[in-house]
Every structure is written in C-alpha cells, then in structure tokens.
C-alpha cells in the first residue's frame, strides 16, 4: 500500500502529534507514505467561502501532483480531506469545472487519483483483524468517546461512513481493547476556526461537546482531525477560566496516537507528551505509559 501523503499545514505545526503518530502507524501497518512534493495549503473554509474556484483549485494542485506519481492521496486532516474530496468530485463530475480548475492551477488533474482520510486507510482498509493482531498493549477497557467532527463524514453520500452515527473509530477503539462509549455528539461541529475568530460562539460548541462526552462517562476523547483536536484540547483551560462550574480535564487523543500506543510504541514517540490536557494519569491507569 502506497499513498501520497498530504499532511496539510496543521500537521506541520499545531497538529504535529498527528503527523508523528500517523507515520508510526503507517510503518506498523505497512502503509508507505510519500509526502506530496512542495504541496500547498488547501485553503480550508476561508478559501472556498472567499472564492469558489480558488477553493477547488488549491486542493487540485496537490491532487495533480499526486496524479503525476499515480498515487491516491491520504489526508489525515478532516478539513483538508473534505476540501480535497469536494475538489475531486467537482472535477470528476464536470468537464467545465475540470477545465477551469486546470486553467487556474496550470496543471492537469484528470480525477484519476482521489483522496482518502487517514481513518479510511488505517482502519477501514487495513481491517480490524490486522489492527487486533498488531495490538500488543490492550487499552484495558478505557472508556473513549469517538469524536469525528462534522466534515469527515460529509458531504452525505460521498463519505466513507455513516453521516449521523459513524462507527469506524468506535470499531477501532474496540479492536484496541478500549470501550467505545455510545454518545450523540460524534458529528457535532466543533466550530473549526470560530473559537479563534469568534471566541464566544466557538467556545460554546466546544463546551457542549465536552459536556456530553463527560456525561456519558468518557475518560478520553479520540479524534481524527487537528482542528477538532486543537479546539477540544487547547480550549479546555479557557473554558475552565471563563465558564462557571466548568472543570474539564478530559484527555484528547488522535486515533493514531492510540493505535501507536496499543501497537507498543512509547506514547512520547507518538507525540502524546505535547498535549495541553494531561494524558499521563489516564494512560497510567491503564498501564499504557
């Protein structure tokens, strides 16, 4: 298995743990990742809500580069994945769009290669049996809420999992020996860049998600997106200061971190030391240090 790897801006900065753990997991699963040479930012939501064509062209340039190498792209970030998927579908379904995009990018993207999320590659394609067989450190029944965020499963009909109650990450948690708690906010939006741009609005969304996760007894939340991760992890401190009675200490993990740990890697090697919310006690509780 070989993929063109699209880390996106976040995995080289705020989401560095995701990058580190993804590389580890890929190695364990025998997935070869080749970073797209000289890739550019996908534009995120700022791109397509400012200029529709630009929103399609920015990801298309990366896809075009990958196409030259004949490789499908793996994009761990949900937002990058969503933008690339949108671009892929748009180019595949309209000759006119394809031509316009090509004109902007000055590169040919034929739609011969497509994008997959890391969750798809590492869990769905690899298979739960492989994951189970690689697991050497069982998560010991840790209660984990799988949080997918909004974009990973949308647009409806194109995604790889159910849009309202996705299960890929839950199944992974179970395969690793954890307990995936059933909870209703798996796909509620965390606000993306709103907590930065419009703090009050954004924080409420984060607050709701954390509250529900806590109320169902989750000891940790697992995500598959650097933006979700940052909002849930970095904003807990903020919330505790700004919201009455808020007292969150809910460890947030990337799913790849949990996989790496269960596959026997040292947590630090997977980047787990870099979180804002302390992870050591929950890891200690389940002998995962």
């Amino acid at each position: 298995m070989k993929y063109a790897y699209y880390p996106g801006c976040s995995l080289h900065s705020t989401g560095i743990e995701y990058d580190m753990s993804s590389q580890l997991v890929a190695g364990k699963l025998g997935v070869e990742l080749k970073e797209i040479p000289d890739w550019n930012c996908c534009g995120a939501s700022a791109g397509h809500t400012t200029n529709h064509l630009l929103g399609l062209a920015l990801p298309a340039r990366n896809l075009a580069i990958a196409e030259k190498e004949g490789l499908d792209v793996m994009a761990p970030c949900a937002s990058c994945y969503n933008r690339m998927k949108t671009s892929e579908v748009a180019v595949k379904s309209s000759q006119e769009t394809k031509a316009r995009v090509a004109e902007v990018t000055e590169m040919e993207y034929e739609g011969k290669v497509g994008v997959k999320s890391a969750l798809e590659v590492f869990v769905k394609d690899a298979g739960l049996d492989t994951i189970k067989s690689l697991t050497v450190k069982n998560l010991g029944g840790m209660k984990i809420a799988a949080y997918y965020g909004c974009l990973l499963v949308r647009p409806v009909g194109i995604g790889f999992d159910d849009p309202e109650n996705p299960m890929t990450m839950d199944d992974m948690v179970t395969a690793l020996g954890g307990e995936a708690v059933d909870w209703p906010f798996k796909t509620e939006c965390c606000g993306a860049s709103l907590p930065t741009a419009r703090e009050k609005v954004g924080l409420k969304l984060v607050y709701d998600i954390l509250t529900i996760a806590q109320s169902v007894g989750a000891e940790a939340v697992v995500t598959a997106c650097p933006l979700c991760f940052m909002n849930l992890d970095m904003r807990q401190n903020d919330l505790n200061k700004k919201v009455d009675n808020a007292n969150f200490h809910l460890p947030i993990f990337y799913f790849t971190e949990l996989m790496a740990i269960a596959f026997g890697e040292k947590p630090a090697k997977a980047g787990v030391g870099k979180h804002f919310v302390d992870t050591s006690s929950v890891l200690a509780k389940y002998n995962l240090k």
Partner: protein
Amino acid sequence: MQPINLTSASAAGKDFVEKVRKASGVDVKACYQCGKCSAGCPVAFAMDYTPRQVMRMLQLGLTEEVLKSHSIWLCAQCETCSARCPRKLEPAKVMEALRIEAKKAGFETEDEIATFNEKFLRSVASNGRVFEAGLVIGFNLATVRPFKDAGVAPSMLANGKLKLLPHKIKGRDAVRRMFEKAEKMEGEHK
C-alpha cells in the same frame, strides 16, 4: 417595523436567486421552510438570521439584508444543514455563495471572521502554506487583542507546534498566480 414592499423586492431578487443557483447549485425556491437546517446548525444561536430565514429572505428578494447579515460569516461550513435537509437542498453551499457575493459587494459584517479569513489566505498566497504563528499574531493584532491566545504560545513553541518562521514552498509563485487567476476568472464568470 417598516413593511417590506414585496412587489419590488421579488422583482429585484429574481436575478439574485438565479445567481445563487448558478454559484451553489441550490434552488432556494424549493425550500419549504421547515427549519430543520436551523435546528441542527451549531451556530444558529449566534446568528442574526437562522439558515432557514436566510433561505426565506432570498425567496422574497431581500438580497441586501441577506448580504449584510452576520449569519453568512458565522456559518462554520460544517454541512450539518445540507446533510439533513429533507428537500435535499444545501444551505451550506448557499452560505458559501452569499459570503463571496457579500465580499464583492463590500459587506463584511463580521470583521473578525473576515479578517481572519483574509489573513489566512494572505498567508497562503505569499507562502503557499499557512504560517500559523504569523496568522494568529497577525489576526490578534488586527483585531486589537494582542494577548488573546498568547498564554498558549510558549508551550506550543516548546512543543514544536509553532514555528517562528514561515515555511515557504517552492511553488509559491504558482500559488500566487492561482489566486490572481481565480479572482479574475470568478469575476468574469458570474
């Protein structure tokens, strides 16, 4: 409250509805105002008009009010509305189209979000990628909140999460050209 003159509003709004349809693929006339989009929208509580109301205002031809609304900027593009609309409409795409139109018309009702987006894109245009530290600092300076999020910066730096210098890609000129071309072509297209 002033009554709305629907005779003139509907006439004027017709072309705009068509424009939105072309840009977003959504025929707002098909919206039957059920409100499911608004009910599921995570930011509707902060909006001045709920997504359903935005659809309604377009139907009635209240173009300017819509373009001046905060809602189109607050929309997080989460696509929850699109996923659940019983009429298979995609309000998220309408929001996108409206934001682009608003920007063209010079209505940027939500300064902070507009500024954030602009800084974000400027970063991409000049480096090819987002320079997060620069973005956050630039954004906070621009919105006169220099110390917002400053508390987290040291630990992020220490963890290698914030780089002090932007990563510039080789193809950044190509990226810059993409910005220019896209702007020109979208301008002509509509």
